[in-house]
């Protein structure tokens, strides 16, 4: 008799848990509609998002911790060193933000593909992950003032340095990596240049070394680093096309935090903070020659 009641209780408990699990399954299917197509659905879900997802400046100060999303595997912008400590250009700035706000910094490892999602759900307060400002992204998040420049660059062997894309010899081919901004830019602006497309960095690198193409177009930070590591190559065109900038981003509408960051970037300009940052973190990779062209100080992009 006793045994039977025990079994009965056990079964009831299990059945309850199971029904909960089943509900969990079906309710998450409801959220599919809300979360699928993340960005596009953002506006429609406003009904579901009754509460504001982000934390204001005061709330962050009160909590004593700021969550900042950085890359953990993009040397030298945000990476983790052999002792498990975050390092890099973005991290250097993140730590300064924490110091000036008087709060602890909690660095969160993000991926290129989930940076916007992190901000839109308020899971981080700021993204400092080498985030290039684009009009599409600016619709999803709020960008602060920039702290770095990026552009395209073209690298070629020292024996035949390419310094201009005008009057291109139609027999020569340009190496690009598929899907990069370099590819799009060249197709749109120099349709006459024959492109040799590769899927990965490694294969493009081999192609340049084997002389399959006369030059390689890529992000200028990449080609500059390549030239420094591989003697015999020179960045003939360090800046090509539109200059893009890299800036901190906050959740759309978080104006208190955005204003604070903008003021911070302006006041840091007085002490040449980002030059110090470059010298601490980027100089080994890019050398001193590119300091002026890569660093944006005080949020002011020099007109060119």
């Amino acid at each position, binding site marked *: 008799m006793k045994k039977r009641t025990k*079994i009965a209780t056990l079964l009831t408990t*299990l*059945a309850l*848990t*199971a029904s909960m*699990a*089943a509900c*969990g*399954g*079906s309710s*998450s*299917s*409801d*959220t*599919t509609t*809300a*979360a699928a197509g*993340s960005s596009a659905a953002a506006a429609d*879900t406003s009904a*579901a*998002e009754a*509460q504001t*997802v982000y934390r204001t400046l005061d709330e962050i100060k009160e909590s004593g911790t700021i969550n900042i999303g950085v890359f*953990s*595997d*993009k*040397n030298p912008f945000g*990476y*983790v*060193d*052999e*002792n*498990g400590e975050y*390092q890099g250009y973005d991290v250097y700035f993140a730590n300064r933000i924490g110091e000036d706000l008087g709060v602890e910094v909690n660095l*969160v*490892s*993000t*991926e290129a*593909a*989930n940076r916007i*999602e*992190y901000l*839109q*759900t*308020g*899971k981080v307060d700021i993204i400092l992950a080498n985030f290039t400002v684009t009009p599409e992204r600016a619709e999803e998040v709020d960008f602060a003032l920039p702290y770095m420049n990026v552009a395209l660059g073209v690298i070629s062997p020292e024996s035949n340095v390419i310094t201009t894309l005008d009057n291109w010899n139609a027999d020569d081919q340009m190496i690009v990596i598929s899907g990069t901004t370099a590819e799009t830019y060249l197709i749109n602006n120099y349709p006459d240049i024959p492109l040799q497309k590769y899927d990965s960095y490694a294969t493009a690198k081999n192609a340049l070394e084997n002389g399959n193409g006369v030059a390689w177009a890529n992000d200028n930070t990449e080609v500059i680093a390549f030239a420094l*590591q591989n003697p015999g190559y020179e960045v003939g065109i360090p800046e090509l096309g539109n200059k893009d900038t890299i800036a901190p981003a906050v959740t759309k509408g978080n104006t208190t935090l955005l204003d604070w960051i903008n003021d911070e970037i302006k006041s840091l300009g007085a002490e040449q903070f980002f030059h110090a940052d470059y010298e601490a973190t980027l100089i*080994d*990779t890019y050398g001193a020659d590119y300091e002026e062209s890569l660093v944006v100080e005080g949020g002011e992009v020099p007109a060119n």
Partner: protein
Amino acid sequence: MPDLGIEVLFKGKNMLRLLGGLWTALRISLIAVVISIPLGILLGVLMTKKNRMLHAILRVYLEFIRIMPQMVLLFLVYFGTTRSFGWDLSGEVASIIVFVLWGTAEMSDLVRGALISIPKHQYESCEALGLSRTQTYLYVIIPQTIRRLIPLSINLITRMIKTTTLVLMIGVVEVLKVAQQIIEANRMNSPNAAFGIYLTIFLLYFLACWPISLLARHLEKKWR
């Protein structure tokens, strides 16, 4: 001997960090396994029942989880719950929830399959012997089912361990993420480190999954 860049493993705390990452991966998968196996068994048993309503619900649940890529489920649970309900789950909790949902669904189908593969005469013989329903399950059906289930569930468990590589997408730093961090941090001075590090990860996963296979083989022999 080609240069595999193994030396970066011995820099600073790199080896310890990799092992810490492996522990994170194992913790997520093992907690999920411990919760989802009993739940899966229960749901599997319920699926063999004739109740239409119950059957439909469980079927929808199973198909939903089976069709969705785990990556989408992770995003749904981690970001989706914040968007829709304002829950701020940590990456690790979200991963455990997804792995439990997934493990339970797959396990329930394995159990259902194992149960219906028990021939009808086994039940009828029990009835002829005058065994009660509980006794029939306890002494005849379940022991046979478990034997059929072992290789299948081992397959599921090792798959769950290996699929933890996806949780890096929701900010959980597990062994693969640590590996990428180490490789990138040494991009300049040891460009070949990727080979050595991935080889190490292969060994780590092997060491984590091999004992489970051994245990399964042992059980299969013991219960033959």
